[in-house]
């Protein structure tokens, strides 16, 4: 789960990491008021997507009037599909250099890793791809935790003057404590700036929390789901894994790997999946019914494809779920079902009695769904 920039900055400043003075505003008048206190400001849209700057979500304002204008431009607009409901109004900071600094989990090494680069402001994706020589990785295992040599190593790599090594130590130690205290999987400053006249300050801050750990953080758990589309949020309530895509073949499977493989097969045979939906293991007919209704509620879906490999999941339960969903829904679209495994014969009988055709081979079913999606277009 991702936190808003202003939430992340509230947290990091509690850990002694310097951030610009600023406050949150949800009206242009409020933004003007804050700017009157702070002088020249930067007005930043608060949205839970990356590359906000490139999308015009960050505006500079020299006067309170300009701050009001900037805020009214941003508030109510949308950035990459996300409505802007708040802006962060922050003092403008004069800086000489921008660095990249983050702490995250390295999957292959099963350890923590600090990522350090003198190329601040560049997205980490681009750093990894285009400037691998300008990116330092400092790995450390969970049992040793953070040690000061890490910040000395980073400071040397960045060419930071010696009198600021201590400041970097405080920042990196704070990042590690945030990581552990909040069960974060990313703490990122991009950029961390070297101010005119000296000193370090985090101009942007991003924290993401490990979803599996949210039960340990009731104060954060309520924020979960804010970055989801309405359908994704509904799916989350129902306990499904659901991701919206832009095709027209609705997909329902059991198991994440099988769901992805089914989406890929749709593409391979020339179609486009409308979603990822994994009903998980051992789904009851009620859950299947809700899953089908959820996919049907997406108007872009022209064909529904179910691909079920029954292990703990029982085919007869899936079959009843499909039948009941269409009884309760007004939408009539072609349905292709492939099912196999536990209680397969019973599942097939139920569906065939209700006029559905059931396939045994995945390839055959996917090809049929793609063909139907073409004729529905």
């Amino acid at each position: 789960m991702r936190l808003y920039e202003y939430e992340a900055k509230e947290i990091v400043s509690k850990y002694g990491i310097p951030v610009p003075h600023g406050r949150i505003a949800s009206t242009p008048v409020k933004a003007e008021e804050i700017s009157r206190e702070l002088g020249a400001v930067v007005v930043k849209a608060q949205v839970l997507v990356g590359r906000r700057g490139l999308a015009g979500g960050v505006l500079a304002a020299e006067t309170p009037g300009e701050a009001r204008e900037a805020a009214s431009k941003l508030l109510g607009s949308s950035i990459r599909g996300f409505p802007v409901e708040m802006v962060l109004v922050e003092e403008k900071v004069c800086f000489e250099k921008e660095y990249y600094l983050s702490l995250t989990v390295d999957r292959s090494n099963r350890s923590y890793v600090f990522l350090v680069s003198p190329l601040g402001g560049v997205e980490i994706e681009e750093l990894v791809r285009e400037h691998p020589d300008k990116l330092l990785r400092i790995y450390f295992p969970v049992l040793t935790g953070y040690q000061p040599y890490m910040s000395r190593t980073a400071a040397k790599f960045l060419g930071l003057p010696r009198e600021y090594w201590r400041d970097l130590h405080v920042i990196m130690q704070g990042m590690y404590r945030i990581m552990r205290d909040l069960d974060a999987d990313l703490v990122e400053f991009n950029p961390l700036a070297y101010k005119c006249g000296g000193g370090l300050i985090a101009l942007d801050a991003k924290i993401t929390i490990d979803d599996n750990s949210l039960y340990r953080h009731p104060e954060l758990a309520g924020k979960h789901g804010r970055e989801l589309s309405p359908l994704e949020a509904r799916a989350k309530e129902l306990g499904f894994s659901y991701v919206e895509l832009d095709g027209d073949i609705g997909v329902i499977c059991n198991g994440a790997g099988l769901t992805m493989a089914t989406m890929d097969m749709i593409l391979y045979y020339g179609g486009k999946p409308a979603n990822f939906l994994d009903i998980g293991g051992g789904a009851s007919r009620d859950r299947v019914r809700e899953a089908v209704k959820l996919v049907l509620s997406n108007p872009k879906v022209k064909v529904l494809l179910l691909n079920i490999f029954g292990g703990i999941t029982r085919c007869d339960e899936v079959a009843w779920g499909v039948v009941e969903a269409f009884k309760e829904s007004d939408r009539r679209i072609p349905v292709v079902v492939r099912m196999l495994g536990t209680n397969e014969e019973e599942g097939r009988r139920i569906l065939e009695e209700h006029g559905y055709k059931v396939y045994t081979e995945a390839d055959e079913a996917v090809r049929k769904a793609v063909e139907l999606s073409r004729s529905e277009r």
Partner: protein
Amino acid sequence: MVLITRNTGVLIQGITGREGRFHTKLMLEYGTRILAGVTPGKGGLEVHGVPVYDTIHEALKHHPDISASIVFVPARFALDAVLEAISNGLKLIVVITEGIPLHDELLFVYYAKTRGTIIIGPNTPGIMVPGEAKLGIMPAHVFVKGRIGLVSRSGTLTYEVARELGKLGYGVSTVIGLGGDPITGLNFIEAYDLFMKDPDTDAVVLIGEIGGDAEERFAAYYSRLNRKKPVVAYVAGKTAPPGKRMGHAGAIISMGIGDYKSKRNSLERAGIPVADTPSQVPRLLSHVLG
């Protein structure tokens, strides 16, 4: 066979829960040598004839043959359960539990390495040697005994591939589910090394998915080997958008790492054929086996 045999003495952690109870029965039916179960506070009970103890320490006193455990305990108690198993000297721990906090996984996976314990999972269907033993939740009938090693980050997709293999007469020597989380006890390199040493395995089928760089690292490792067994791969997630978690906690393209193209290119450059669909796997396998 790899890691387990019909003689492996097995402990079930979380045996009295719904999942633990259900799968204990299925594993017993398959012939797995289950000696004991542990659920704190439930010592003295029996589940399907298996005695239940409060602690692993006590279970080991009565059943010194136990060398492996399979964990069904809920996510928030998993760290405690896995550390208990490692500390009591168990050599193999299969962690079925899904949704374990990331930092807990980092801790027990690291500790297991220092103690020489092998962890399979978390969030895995488990491990199975057809005809010998099953420490997991996979539907047993899908896996026919044979000479292909199967290693996967996924569950039902593995069943699908095993079924496709069976259609061309290929059976499975051992199937290992690495697990769907970002941090797992075994990776593709370590699993391949086990198959390399296994006289019952002629070739390996690797089932990967988007997220992380385990497939890329395996490809780099494999291309440096002098002696090797043939490998065929399938990777799921070509159509997955970046930044979205595709069901598994580990199946996410983040910070520019983990997309399909990079995995496929790396594997193919290492001489490993990559199937476009699960149904193509057996054909590619018949090519590499000649």
